[in-house]
């Protein structure tokens, strides 16, 4: 059964190579290949969900450096979400990419990113995780600079150097964790650190863990390293921004979960200055992201800042180190992935049909693109956390978890920041929806556009799924039950 993991990694890899080097001209074929492969990977990931834990040692680079794949509950959870979203986006790309050139390259790097993300999900030890983490960056970078304009290349380089720099800093932590391990760096619930060995160095280790968490946090847009998101997202083609914002930021989340719960063990940093400092930075990021989103005029930039704050919700849930908060975090991973991808696809649909990028231009857009904007409205309400959307449940758990955390000051500060941020979220998302449907100036004639099914179906599916995430709350609580 372990071969299922390998297939779900190799299949998109082969697909990417075929698309890149093959002489396929027909764009229908290109798109069908990309869609079919993503769909098969989704089916495989779902199948893996129903198996017992899988584990396979692939090869050894050198002594102590082993490439190991493992499917535990975390891997399964992320693999399903990522492959599901990839499948949906590939449907959307079919119509959207008519306005972009060089479709072959886009699909091939798209599948390559999927390959590396799958490998990241199934990474069974720290080394493999680091390896795939770096490769995710390298493979998703070409998506950012797809249009090859000066601006997009600059953005891609910024993304590359931020992410590589973050990962290099994280590597310091990996070296220390491997050094203080009990012999292997394979992920074990509760951590693999040798408690006797690490005892004399615990203060050093805390510093190291802190910079490691921030290092990997660069991918999640933690302050002050959030700069790459608002630069890279607007210039990328919309399906690519969706992938970056909804999925690639989760790569950082995977890394952080793996480090906190499976490498060092949550007890190691619980109630230490590391937890306090880390949570403070996250809270600031949440607030800063939301307020920055509010003042952005560019639609995609606004969504990018929204990602900065929303992904930090997820990291906050991880950092609280208790069951409720972590449940909230997992729920938010699922709902944010679906909602943010949906919102970026909406932005893409608007660009596709009207070539409008700025928020102020969107007045009356609801008359032109009714289905798209209805989806937008529902998705926005979801992100703000209006029941019954999934994000409502997740934020509820996050708030409860924060209060339960027993941390001084932060236990009340955190829910307060969450509340303020929710209000800000409403403030930066809802006016767009309102103005889209209510036009003051009646003289402007707005023609209803023919919305393609390739655009509306993915949007509707994402909207429905994101609303339904809350229904799975019990299952997700079950997942995290044993983690803390």
């Amino acid at each position: 059964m372990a071969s299922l993991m390998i297939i779900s990694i190799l299949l998109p890899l082969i697909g990417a190579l075929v698309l890149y080097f093959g002489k396929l001209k027909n764009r229908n074929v290109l798109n069908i290949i990309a869609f079919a492969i993503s769909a098969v990977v989704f089916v495989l990931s779902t199948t893996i969900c129903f198996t017992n834990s899988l584990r396979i040692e692939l090869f050894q680079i050198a002594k102590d450096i082993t490439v190991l794949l493992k499917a535990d509950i975390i891997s399964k959870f992320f693999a399903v979400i990522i492959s599901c979203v990839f499948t949906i986006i590939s449907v959307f790309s079919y119509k959207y990419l008519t306005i972009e050139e060089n479709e072959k390259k886009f699909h091939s790097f798209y599948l390559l990113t999927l390959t590396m993300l799958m490998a990241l999900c199934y990474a069974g030890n720290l080394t493999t995780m680091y390896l795939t983490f770096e490769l995710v960056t390298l493979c998703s970078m070409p998506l950012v600079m797809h249009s090859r304009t000066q601006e997009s290349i600059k953005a891609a380089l910024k993304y590359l150097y931020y992410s590589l720099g973050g990962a290099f800093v994280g590597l310091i932590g990996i070296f220390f964790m491997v050094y203080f391990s009990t012999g292997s760096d394979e992920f074990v619930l509760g951590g693999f650190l040798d408690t006797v060995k690490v005892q004399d160095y615990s203060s050093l280790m805390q510093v190291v863990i802190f910079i490691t968490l921030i290092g990997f946090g660069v991918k999640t847009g933690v302050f002050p390293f959030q700069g790459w998101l608002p630069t890279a997202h607007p210039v990328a083609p919309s399906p690519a921004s969706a992938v970056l914002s909804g999925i690639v930021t989760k790569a950082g989340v995977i890394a952080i979960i793996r480090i906190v719960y499976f490498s060092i063990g949550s007890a190691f940093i619980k109630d230490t200055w590391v937890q306090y400092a880390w949570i403070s930075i996250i809270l600031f990021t949440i607030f800063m992201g939301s307020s920055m989103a509010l003042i952005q005029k560019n639609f995609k930039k606004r969504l990018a800042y929204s990602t900065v704050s929303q992904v930090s919700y997820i990291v906050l849930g991880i950092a609280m180190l208790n069951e409720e908060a972590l449940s909230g975090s997992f729920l938010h991973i699922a709902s944010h992935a679906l909602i943010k991808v949906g919102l970026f696809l909406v932005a893409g649909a608007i660009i596709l049909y009207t070539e409008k990028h700025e928020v102020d231009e969107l007045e009356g857009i609801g008359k032109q693109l009714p289905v798209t904007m209805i989806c937008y409205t529902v998705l926005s309400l979801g992100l703000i956390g209006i029941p019954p959307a999934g994000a409502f449940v997740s934020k509820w758990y996050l708030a409860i978890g924060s209060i339960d955390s027993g941390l001084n000051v932060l236990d009340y500060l955190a829910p307060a920041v969450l509340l303020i941020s929710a209000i800000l979220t409403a403030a930066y998302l809802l006016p767009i929806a309102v103005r889209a449907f209510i036009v003051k100036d009646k003289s402007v004639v707005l023609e209803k556009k023919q919305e393609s099914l390739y655009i509306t179906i993915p949007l509707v599916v994402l909207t429905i799924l994101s609303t339904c995430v809350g229904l799975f709350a019990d299952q997700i609580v079950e997942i995290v039950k044993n983690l803390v």
Partner: protein
Amino acid sequence: MSAWLLLIPILLPIIGGFIARFFEKKSTARKIFSLFVVCLTSSFVIWFTFTVSPEVETIIKFGKYFSFALKLDGTGKIFSMMVALLWPFALLYSFAYMEDERRQDVYNSYYIMTFGIVLGIAYSANLMSMYVIYEALTFITLPLITHTATKEARRAGRMYLYYSLTGSSVALVGMGMLVINAGTLDFVPHGSTTDAMQLAYALLFFGFGVKAAIFPLCHWLPAASAAPTPTTALLHAVAVVKAGAFAIIRTTYYCFDINKLQGSVVQGIALGFAAFTIVYGALKAAKEQHFKRRLAYSTIANLSYILFGVALMTKAGLIAALIHLVYHSITKIGLFFACGAIIKNSGAHYVYELDGMGKKMPITFTFFTLSALSLTGIPLFACFVSKWYLCTAAIELNSFVGYMGMAALIISSLFTAIYALSIPIRAFVYKPNVISQPIVEKAKEPGILYLVTIGVFAILAVVFGVMSTPLVDAITSAVGGLV
């Protein structure tokens, strides 16, 4: 097996180099003969590596302390093996590169002769022998640097000479202090010193450190990039500079007692300078716009990775240093080969002249990208493995300088990403700019000889990145009895 046999691979290329002068300048026979000599020498080296290690053999004796003696041990095997595998490819590359150059036959002779000298360094059995051959290396490579005889090249040659001679005279003083204390200069594991000998160590470290380009003695190396690219690739990325690093390995682990030096002030100084050079080299490389000089600064940083590993004075440190010695050689020679091919086939000398050249030279730049990824230390490429071992060794030291060095490595990695990866990005992604437009139009994919030699090292960087176990095991067993 007698160590007298070791004279064969040392003398063969030197004599062969002389004989090669008698051939017609442009003749194919000269090339075939040269290649034959180099391949024969390499075969000897490989044969010796896999047979039993010979005992120390004194070839000539000068008085009580000094003798010229040869031996072959684990460390020597690794260094000689590496050089022997690189030289035939480098020679092939130099044939392609020097095709239309003036005085290519002279160049060729010195190129071959250097091989013997470098092997001599690997096979020396005591510090005296190594010192003599090390001096010879300085002089034999001088014509290779000044080959083009331009003003720049002559200046580079002068700088190289002054720096190297100063370095070796400093080392000579250290050697004198050593021989007074220890009574012998023989290479024996853990040395024969009776106390720490910190000053002597400092003198030898910085004396030999000139060739290994440690700050502030590194400026000759970027200047020397005025030499033809085969020189820069083989000598200033591998043979000469690594001979400096190798000399430091020899003195540290075979002349001094590392247990006495461990934790001493001089170790802190050595580590500190290495760490500083790592950052300095990487920063300068990121700032440098001249293509070859950028790679030269990168070499400065990477050589200090090796020196840092050596100065950790632990088994893990030595293993890491040797791994990086090999992997950096493979990677950097690949980068320089690609760089030379680009310079020769387009005329671009500056990085900004490469904008949009990827379309014209896709294969060359693909190989360049692989080597550049390796240099950055991306997993699945060779240098990641050496970076891993270096950092792990640094942690094991459990001291402030160790952690500082690790931080230096990480900072340098980031700058490596900037200076190394920006070149393929410029070539593949950027559109030709005003300056690069005419150059790109002229550019064409280089000939098969270029592509093969570049490709071999790019692919080796990937292969070693995926399976390093054999090499790491070989190095571990080679230094096994040592520390």
